[in-house]
């Protein structure tokens, strides 16, 4: 025991801890890769969008105590969305739903359309058009296809464009706080 304790002396423990730390660094840096960080930010933004948007009265008749965020297609957020699970929007608990079927999308209040769905984007848009669903996507040109909020990257920062005509069509009232940070897009 004495030999062991002599071996495991303070400098040894310190160097061991240092090695462990050095091993851990790549792990941490991996978990904070730009890709992952970007979706962390986007997940937080989803909640902000929800908080700064007003839904028409009667929207929550079917699910009074829940705010449903639907993720259509391959979920790019992963566990990042877990951050939103305990949060509320207008006093309603956030519920995250993964959706594959387009018909389910009208039950959502906020619909995130993953880039995997870019092929059937027109179909999806056509389905939720005029329904009080806030559509968000990072598919390029989403805002011009009739989507409401489109993410884009500018100088490594997550930015967004808002198609206010699409929002008006969906009967959604987007707060000026949100509009002042967005690039505004209008349909001609």
């Amino acid at each position, binding site marked *: 025991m004495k030999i062991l304790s002599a071996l495991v002396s303070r400098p040894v423990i310190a160097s061991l801890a240092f090695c462990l730390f050095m091993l851990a660094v790549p792990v941490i840096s991996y978990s904070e890769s730009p890709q992952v960080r970007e979706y962390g930010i986007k997940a937080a933004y989803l909640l*902000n969008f929800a908080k*700064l948007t007003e839904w028409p009265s009667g929207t929550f008749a079917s699910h009074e105590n829940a705010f449903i965020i639907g993720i259509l297609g391959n979920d790019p957020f992963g566990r990042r969305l877990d951050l939103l699970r305990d949060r509320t929007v207008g*006093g309603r608990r956030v519920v995250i739903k993964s959706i594959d079927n387009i018909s389910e999308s009208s039950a959502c209040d906020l619909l995130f359309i993953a880039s995997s769905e870019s092929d059937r984007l027109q179909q999806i848009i056509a389905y939720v058009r005029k329904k009080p669903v806030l559509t968000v996507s990072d598919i390029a040109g989403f805002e011009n296809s009739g989507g409401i909020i489109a993410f884009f990257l500018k100088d490594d920062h997550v930015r967004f464009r808002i198609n206010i005509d699409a929002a008006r069509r969906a009967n959604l009232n987007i707060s000026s706080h949100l509009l002042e940070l967005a690039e505004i897009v209008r349909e001609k």
Partner: protein
Amino acid sequence: MRTTSIKHKLSLINIISIGFIIILIGLSVFIEEFVRLRTELLTDTTSQAVIIAKNSVSALLFGDRNRSDETLESLQNISDIEEAAIYTKDGRILGRHVRGDIKNASYPVDPGKEGYTFEKDHLAVCHNVVLDNETIGKVYVCAGTARIKHNLLKLLFFIVTVSGLASGAAFLLLGKLQKTIVDPLFHLSNVMNKVTEEKDYSVRTSVHSTDELGMVAGGLNKMLEQIEKWNMELEDKVAARTTTLRQTNELLTEEIAERKRMETERDMLIVELQEALAEVKQLSGLLPICSSCKKIRDDKGYWTQIESYISEHSEALFTHAICPECGKKLYPEYYDDIWGKEDK
């Protein structure tokens, strides 16, 4: 206090009342202004904090520093605000504003609870940024109280100057008004002095106002009139009595003189009577007379002729003549010549 004159008492009353009023007014104006400026600063700063809080929602939600700086830029034109900052939910400073002249800005690590605190020379206001019942950040605004102090100092100077001028003017005015009370009083007291010292009841006061002093003066005049009247009546009575007494005195003196005179007369009469009595005694008693020659024997035993005896013992004197009978007898030759004629 009892020995000081009315003039000094009135001056003292003036000083005390004017001073009291001026201090009271000055104090109330000062306090009112102090409270007003403080409330104004608090209202302004709080409303700025509220506006910043409203405008910093998006900046806080999306962690946008540019946006928060833009929001704070609006404070540049508000000179009272020295520092301002927007804090995120976890206490980081997202944006800040410092007035140009402030050298070392000191943002608190934690702006604390929502509300305000007045400190030595600044007012710190903290306002929560709330979205959807959730506090997403805090706004801290710190305003300097230098302007308030400057304004209060100016007000104080103004109050002191105006108070000085006002009290001076009031003093002069009251002094003049005071004369309308003090002068008649002096006059009254002078009249009283003259009456008591010189016993001159003919003096009269010349106060002809209808106020209390006028009433006192009128009363004094009436009293003096009454006293003078009584005095004159008394003098008249004394004079009349004196005349009566003098007359009585004269009468008495006269009477006494008369009596004295009568007494002397009586005494003389008595003497005369006594003398007469003495003379009467000389011829009284028995006189031995010779039956022939009619000589009278005196006390010494000498025989004297009757006429010399009577002349001696009385006032009577004798003239000698011859009666006709004796003439006939003695001188018959001449009888017819002397006495015959007489018979015819």
